[in-house]
């Protein structure tokens, strides 16, 4: 029982970390960044590089954040920004970009599945059951991500301007806010978060050039039911992620992998606002 609850909480934490970057980019730029899976993969491979260079495993996280931010900056400047007036084309471009990132990674690192070292190994006893320390660490990491985003949004001038742009961009511009700059910074942060999430999840599984795809699909569905709210995203990750764990545990892991997509689609039929206020 304890293990099951912890599985649900850690799965929700991972899903939240993966989807948060997608959410803030959707909120500010009003586009779904389908390159999110690609950015996540970059984070996974940042961890692999750290492993292959024999560096301290903790360095995977800052390395992934930096790689994600740099990629995000380049992509925003040269792909997203020129398509600002054509959001549909911008979304298609991010889709293509995701594929290109996968191909580039294949060329550089090969197609095969590889493994990344874990900064925390071993298990601990929680209420009498042994549980992976690394998975417990992921709860902390997701909480830090959530706290960091919330602090950035609610306690800084940039966050205030980002919220203004999310709610009413023309009004924000009329008050002197450089919405282009807000979009750029947001995209960089979103890409950095995606990449960080990629580095966080790789010690649990492995890296391969297409590792981002299933995460992208799940994150996309979670964001769709969250109406650009971090609190809703947390609830969505907990409930839909929880359902995924239950289905995987008691029915089959294969069907479990489809749970989030199916439930999110059903939820949107019944209640288009999803977990948001409507």
């Amino acid at each position, binding site marked *: 029982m304890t293990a099951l609850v912890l599985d649900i909480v850690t799965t929700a934490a991972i899903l939240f970390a993966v989807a948060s970057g997608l959410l803030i980019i959707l909120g500010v730029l009003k586009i779904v960044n389908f390159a999110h899976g690609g950015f996540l993969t970059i984070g996974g491979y940042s961890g692999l590089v750290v492993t292959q260079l024999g560096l301290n495993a903790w360095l995977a996280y800052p390395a992934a954040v930096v790689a994600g931010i740099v990629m995000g900056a380049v992509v925003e400047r040269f792909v997203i920004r020129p398509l600002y007036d054509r959001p549909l084309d911008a979304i298609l471009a991010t889709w293509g970009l995701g594929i290109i990132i996968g191909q580039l990674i294949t060329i550089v690192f090969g197609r095969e599945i590889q493994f990344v070292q874990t900064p925390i190994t071993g298990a601990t006893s929680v209420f009498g059951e042994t549980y992976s320390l690394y998975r417990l660490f992921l709860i902390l990491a997701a909480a830090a991500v959530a706290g960091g985003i919330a602090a950035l949004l609610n306690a800084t*001038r940039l966050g*205030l*301007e980002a*919220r*203004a742009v999310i*709610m*009413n961009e*023309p*009004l*924000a*511009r*009329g*008050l*002197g*806010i*450089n*919405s*282009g700059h807000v979009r750029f910074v947001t995209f960089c942060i979103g890409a950095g978060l995606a990449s960080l999430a990629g580095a966080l999840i790789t010690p649990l599984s492995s890296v391969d050039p297409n590792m981002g795809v299933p995460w992208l699909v799940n994150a996309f569905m979670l964001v769709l039911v969250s109406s650009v709210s971090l609190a809703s995203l947390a609830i969505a990750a907990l409930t839909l992620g929880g359902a995924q764990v239950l289905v995987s545990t008691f029915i089959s892991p294969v069907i479990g992998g489809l749970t989030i997509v199916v439930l999110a689609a059903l939820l949107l039929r019944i209640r288009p606002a999803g977990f948001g206020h409507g």
Partner: protein
Amino acid sequence: MSPTVLDIADLSSGYGEAIVLRNVSLSIRPGEIFALLGKNGMGKSTLLKTVLGFLPAKRGRIKLFGEDVTALPTHLIARKAIAYTPQEQTLFQDLTVEDNLRLGLRDDRGFAEGLARVSEYFPIVGKRLSQKAGTLSGGEQKMLIVSRALLGSPRLMMIDEISEGLQPSMIQRLTEILLAERKRTGTAIFVVEQNVPFAFSMADRYAVLKIGEIADDGVAGDELAAARVQDQLRV
């Protein structure tokens, strides 16, 4: 001689292919209150949106404080000591009163001082800082809008039909506040209005916009002008 605050020359603009404004020229001097009047759909809001760079000028030129801003992006125009108050969606409904006010300044320095000043005009604004702007009453929202505009002590205020839906005593109060603020900072004020008595109670000069063109303009001082403009706004 300080340059004109706003100088619009031969301006044409509109939406896509549709031309709304044709060859509009007007200028506003430092400290001047200028009223632009006209019936619904004549292009008043379109003119303000073009000055702010939301719409590109198809012809002509716009200067602010002597500088050509015709092709400048909106946020850079807005940073030129201008307070623009659009006709619709003027507040961030889901942000608090305080956050809406903070967005009237480019950074948080000077906020406390500015807040103390506007709270003297509108005490309610200072008392409702943590309330969501969208939950204020219509009249309270107007007070917040004006407070935000005054917060940064602008050199030019551009106010699009603020009097809509306000009770007479509130309109009277607003007139006093805008006149007091002009006296304090020497700001110029560009009001777009359909309420002729309100506009003429403050304005130094006026212009009437008719199907995108200036049909009449002059000094706002005399009763005759007010009566003539009132006539032009009738159907």
